[in-house]
């Protein structure tokens, strides 16, 4: 069965509910309705027409509103799962095993399961991406499937509609004109309708007045915006289009900027300022005693000479000096560096006094730069301290009894010193950690007495670059435009036919805002002395309530 042939002779595609030519209801369902379902103007939704090949089946799946809504709900629910625990990208652990351990240690069994199921890196999971992709496909296909048939049926609208179509509209009137002369009724209608900004078409004794047809395209314009927005997001995956990276940089350090090839950053100074105020009662209650005024990193941006290789730092050219503050990023070439985080007082240098344990005499002072320790620290000809081992982040001893370091950062430095003194020219060995000293030989004459620390501050910066912002902006504007068109305008249509005996048959339809179309109709009815229309839905309600009354 290729076509549905209407009584009027017009061939409609299979699945059509209302004949595109005369408006007669075609299906049994439509015929039994008191008021026609005017969705898509009764035209055949493409997916409803055939369901034969595999392509058709896939097409129909995605065009279904039920499937679309389900996909939206599933995506929302699943996306929210990713916010329960910290995502992997923000876990500061060296490797995969470290990250697995992090979730188990911090969140227990739940964390372990969470990690195992991949929720800890949810937004990069294959199945998550496929879910979002399916949502995208659903939006596109559903729009094509509904938009084109609707456009066709709106474009090819006939002026004259069949009685069975008119009678099944919500607003309907049939009767004699209340004026003496019925010959120029349609002219009067046309005049008034035009004044009300309707477009009027006439065909013999039939008239169609229409207003705000473009409102029907609102949802489709809105989808186009959404699709443009999605394309912008997809472009993020191409190299050189989008960068979202972060870095920690210590005062005095020069680092390559992740995601910004060929550029280096030097942290001159990190400044943290607070307001010089006495804490208020509320602050004391919250355990806060100062209000932050400024977070600032003074930096120098360097660029490698053209044609340099990664790792070459002997040819850096200064690009600019800048003070990065909150909301005042360093901007260069489309990249922005934002102040995001800081750590105060990281150990930089530890000082020790080489002290005679018995007499308390100090032979000299040794300062170890924890980022760049030296092999030996000479005090005088007969006295020096050799650094034999250094563990920046001492975490205990392994099974073999060797000291371990957990990270390269000097969080808990430990040292093995060899103290060469006039009394002990071969040296005395001492293991020194914070609040812990081990003397492998037993009883040393000298000790490395802790005498002070120097600290540096660290600054956490994020690096951003996004070339898709104009695309996202355009997509967003089109989206909102579509929403506005669909929400604030409505498509109103009035069909009027003057019958052979001079009587008037009138029907009207709008996709929303029935109140306003009635107002328009009231004006026209008065002007052209038309028979009074009725709202068949009101009628229904009234008769229902009448019935209720009777039952009581």
């Amino acid at each position, binding site marked *: 069965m290729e076509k549905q042939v209407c009584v009027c002779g017009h061939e409609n595609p299979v699945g059509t509910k209302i004949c595109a030519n005369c408006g007669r209801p075609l299906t049994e369902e439509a015929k039994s309705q008191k008021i026609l379902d005017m969705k898509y103007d009764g035209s055949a939704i493409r997916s409803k027409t*055939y369901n034969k*090949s595999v*392509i*058709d089946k*896939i*097409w129909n799946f995605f065009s279904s509103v039920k499937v679309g809504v389900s996909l939206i709900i599933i995506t929302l629910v699943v996306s929210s799962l990713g916010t329960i625990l910290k995502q992997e990208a923000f876990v500061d652990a*060296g*490797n*995969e095993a470290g990250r697995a351990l992090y979730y188990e240690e911090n969140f227990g069994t739940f964390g372990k399961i969470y990690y195992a199921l991949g929720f800890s890196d949810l937004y*990069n999971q*294959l199945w998550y*991406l*496929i879910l979002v*992709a399916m949502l*995208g*496909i659903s939006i*596109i*296909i559903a729009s*094509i499937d509904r938009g084109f048939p609707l456009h066709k049926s709106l474009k090819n609208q006939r002026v004259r509609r069949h009685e069975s179509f008119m009678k099944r509209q919500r607003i309907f009137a049939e009767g004699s004109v209340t004026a003496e002369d019925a010959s120029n009724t349609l002219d009067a209608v046309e005049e008034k309708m035009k004044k009300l900004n309707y477009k009027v078409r006439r065909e013999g004794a039939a008239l169609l007045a229409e207003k705000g047809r473009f409102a029907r395209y609102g949802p489709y314009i809105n989808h186009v915006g959404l699709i443009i927005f999605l394309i912008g997001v*997809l472009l993020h*995956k*191409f*190299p050189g289009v989008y960068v979202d990276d972060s870095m920690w940089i210590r005062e005095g350090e*020069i*680092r*390559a900027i*992740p*995601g910004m*090839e060929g550029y*280096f950053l030097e942290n001159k100074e990190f400044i943290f300022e607070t307001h010089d105020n006495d804490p208020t009662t509320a602050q004391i209650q919250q355990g806060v005693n100062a209000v932050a005024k400024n977070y600032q990193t003074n930096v120098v941006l360097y660029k490698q000479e053209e044609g340099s*290789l*990664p*790792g*070459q*730092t002997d040819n850096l050219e200064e690009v600019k000096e800048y003070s990065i503050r909150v909301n005042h990023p360093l901007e260069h070439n489309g990249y922005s560096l934002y102040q995001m985080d800081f750590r105060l007082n990281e150990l930089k240098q530890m000082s020790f006094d080489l002290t005679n344990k018995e007499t308390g005499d100090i032979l000299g002072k040794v300062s170890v730069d924890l*980022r*760049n*320790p*030296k*092999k030996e620290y000479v005090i005088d000809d007969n006295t020096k301290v050799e*650094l*034999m*081992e*250094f563990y*920046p*982040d001492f975490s205990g001893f392994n099974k073999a009894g060797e000291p*371990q*370091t*957990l*990270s*390269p950062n000097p969080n808990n430095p430990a040292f093995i010193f060899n103290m060469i003194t006039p009394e002990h020219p071969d040296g005395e060995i001492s293991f020194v950690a914070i609040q812990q000293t081990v003397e492998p030989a037993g009883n040393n004459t000298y000790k490395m007495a802790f005498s002070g620390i120097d600290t540096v501050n660290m600054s956490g910066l994020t690096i951003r670059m996004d070339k898709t912002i104009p695309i996202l902006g355009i997509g967003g504007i089109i989206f909102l435009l579509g929403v506005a068109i669909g929400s604030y305008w409505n498509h109103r249509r009035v069909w009027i036919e003057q019958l052979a005996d001079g009587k008037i048959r009138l029907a009207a339809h709008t996709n929303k805002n029935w109140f306003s179309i009635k107002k328009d109709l009231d004006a026209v009815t008065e002007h052209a002395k038309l028979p009074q229309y009725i709202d068949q839905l009101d009628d229904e309600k009234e008769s229902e309530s009448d019935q209720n009354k009777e039952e009581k």
Partner: protein
Amino acid sequence: MDKKRKRSITRGVILAVLVLAIGFTVYSSLTKDKVELLTVGDTAPDFELVGLDGNKHRLSDYRGEGVMLNFWGTWCEPCKREMPAMDRQYEVFKDQGVNLLTINIAQSEFEVQNFLNSLGVDFPTVIDKTRDVRDAYNIIDLPASIFIDPNGKVVKIKTGEMSEADIIKNMEMIKPE
């Protein structure tokens, strides 16, 4: 019938375009986190770093010979475990045109030298002080090894500890003809 076929073709084309676009996106975002700029078959990014020996080491100087790059840190236990085997195999393969260059991530010369001394290994080592080379190779987890053939192409990317057998197998792959 003709119309039906036309419809099938139109729908098929639309679906195919969508699937292709999405397939590409999914594929690229899945590979992104591992190695964004580097995959097997790519030319290994050239770099130059200063070694413990005080000399500049440039990757392209090794053209015509195989190179194994190994990224590591002293705090990384698996790095430490695989080093003796790497050292042994480097001794075997270096006469066959396979080089080993280990890259420490931004630690002090003292720590690096001390660490290698205590392990008793002696292979060329450079320090990536600015982490620039690590970024260029998009190394996240340590240890990470990159095997590069005599033409400068990446043959194998291995994240995590390797057994001696793995090292031998991969070094064989990058041996010049």
